[in-house]
């Protein structure tokens, strides 16, 4: 009996902690003139949202956030694919060293990386540009895609490719028809990680973008210091919606295809 009770308590706590932010944002974002100590807003309104979406900077922030995160994750995937395949499938001298080279950037704080890159990018003219920020985001995203994909390749069986080769497929056909299909779920997960890391990046964007590149975290930060709870909440909601959608879509995709994919291993 007491065990059941503690189970319910934990369950409640878990879901409570996870759901509270969304509910909170939603309530605040649709409130107007909600004075202390009222428990619910006196007035429900979509005007904070309307204000937010009519602000040119919001749309710019959303656009730049999406483009940078998409570009950084796709670039990460493309660059890490051959590296991850080698790390996952081959035993060679220096493998540990290569591994370390990708690991170190994950523990060095973005603060230090951003400060150093700031100066470097100023010199080569990349500071303050979308390209510069995207490249800077590669420092944290690339190691994650490499590690995620190499664990996928560690379980990969090259005999599928050998089979296709013997059946007459050329290397290009093998890559698109066999390899890509087999590792696709892994690519999705790795891409998701990269997207989320880039999406939530504040420091690197600030230090490289220098205020000229406007992503949602930058807007959120300045709105937090500005202090209107309704607009903070509306912006937060806008900020978490894409990751929530992306994660939900991924979970759904893996739920449908995960089983079929696991059978091959």
């Amino acid at each position, binding site marked *: 009996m007491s065990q059941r009770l503690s189970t319910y308590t934990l369950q409640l706590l878990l879901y409570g902690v996870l759901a509270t932010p969304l509910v909170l944002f939603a309530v605040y974002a649709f409130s107007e003139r909600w004075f202390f100590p009222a428990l619910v807003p006196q007035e429900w309104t979509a005007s904070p949202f309307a204000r937010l979406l009519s602000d040119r900077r919001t749309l710019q922030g959303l656009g730049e956030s999406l483009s940078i995160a998409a570009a950084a994750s796709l670039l990460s995937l493309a660059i890490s694919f051959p590296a991850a395949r080698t790390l996952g499938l081959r035993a060679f001298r220096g493998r540990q060293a290569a591994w370390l080279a990708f690991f170190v950037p994950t523990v060095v704080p973005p603060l230090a990386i951003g400060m150093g890159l700031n100066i470097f990018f100023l010199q080569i003219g990349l500071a303050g540009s979308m390209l510069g920020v995207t490249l800077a985001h590669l420092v944290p995203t690339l190691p994650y895609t490499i590690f995620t994909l190499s664990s996928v390749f560690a379980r990969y*069986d090259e*005999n*599928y490719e050998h089979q296709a080769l*013997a*059946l*007459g*497929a*050329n290397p290009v056909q093998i890559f698109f028809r066999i390899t890509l299909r087999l590792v696709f779920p892994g690519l999705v997960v790795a891409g998701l990680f990269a997207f989320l890391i880039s999406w939530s990046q504040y420091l690197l964007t600030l230090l490289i973008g220098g205020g000229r590149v406007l992503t949602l975290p930058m807007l959120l930060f300045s709105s937090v210091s500005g202090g209107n709870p309704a607009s903070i909440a509306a912006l937060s909601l806008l900020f978490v919606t894409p990751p929530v959608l992306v994660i939900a879509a991924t979970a759904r995709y893996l739920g449908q295809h995960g089983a079929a994919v696991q059978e*091959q291993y």
Partner: protein
Amino acid sequence: MTDVSILDLRKTYPGQAQPVLDHFSLSVHAGELVALLGPSGSGKSTILKLITGIETPDSGDIQFNRKTILNTPPNQRGAVFMFQKAYLFPFLSIAENIGFGLKMQNASKATIQAAVKRMLDLIGLPGIEKRKPAHLSGGEQQRVALARALVTQPRLLLLDEPLSSLDTAVRANLQEAIRRIQRELGITTILVTHDLSEAMSMSDRMALLLDGQVAAFDQPMRLFQHPPSEQAARFVGINTFLRGEVSDGCLRTDLGTLEVCPNRSKPGPGVFAIRPEHIRIESNQRPNALPGIIKDCTYHGEYVEYQVEIPEMSVRARVPMPTEMVPHGAPVHVIFPQEHLFQIKNA
């Protein structure tokens, strides 16, 4: 119809000092099924990888119909293979799996469809075109893998332990199916296996691979009954070797003298071997026998296996369907029938 010649092949894997294969030669006639039999690590699978082009040899040559194929890209060699695992592409249907090779040749839809249907009939699984590999049993998956391999009418079929993950009944069934289809299509086939009975039941000839070289190459029956060397003999289950001086149709050993067939023995120091099934056990004194004591007996149903201690030597004998068993510790006479003793190369 393709014949295959492997000439003086040598292969060393990167980072390894010893070559897996050295001076390896083998020739397979067109339409023949040759089994490569050997313990794990003997380089059996490497040969298949070299033939398909997944690996390249250090030196030597591989020829199809007396023309080298080493410069042919792997996907144009027409050497298909089947592994222990079916490796059906999990995201394709059965029909798409079987049709894969034809699709790579840009065959028309109708051609592929017809070929798939023909192959499914051939492997005895008609009507499963739309299913996914995951929904088939292990044996069915292997049948589909065979169909997929054969649909393009390849020059050579390579089988790498294709049945070793299946249970006994399915396995026997599939052995028979592969053999039937192979004969029907007349496709030259190399089968790699570590299973003696599988090699014997499926092959026209079998090659015994030991230490990267062919230790014996002959028809299964001859290799099983009269292996040429002690190594080969041990591999086919013989472990009784009698050493002595041969003269006048007699083998003089330290334990006694045995008669051997004069026309199958060379005078001088020699080694004779005998299969455990040919050794007999009697309680009374008989000709061509040596005295011993039963150390162990195990009942196996079709036969009883005795371990008999002859001074300084242990002999294993298999007696088929005995009516009663000789008890442990009993003194017996071990009979080595003259017609079954055969001479092997001196070690």
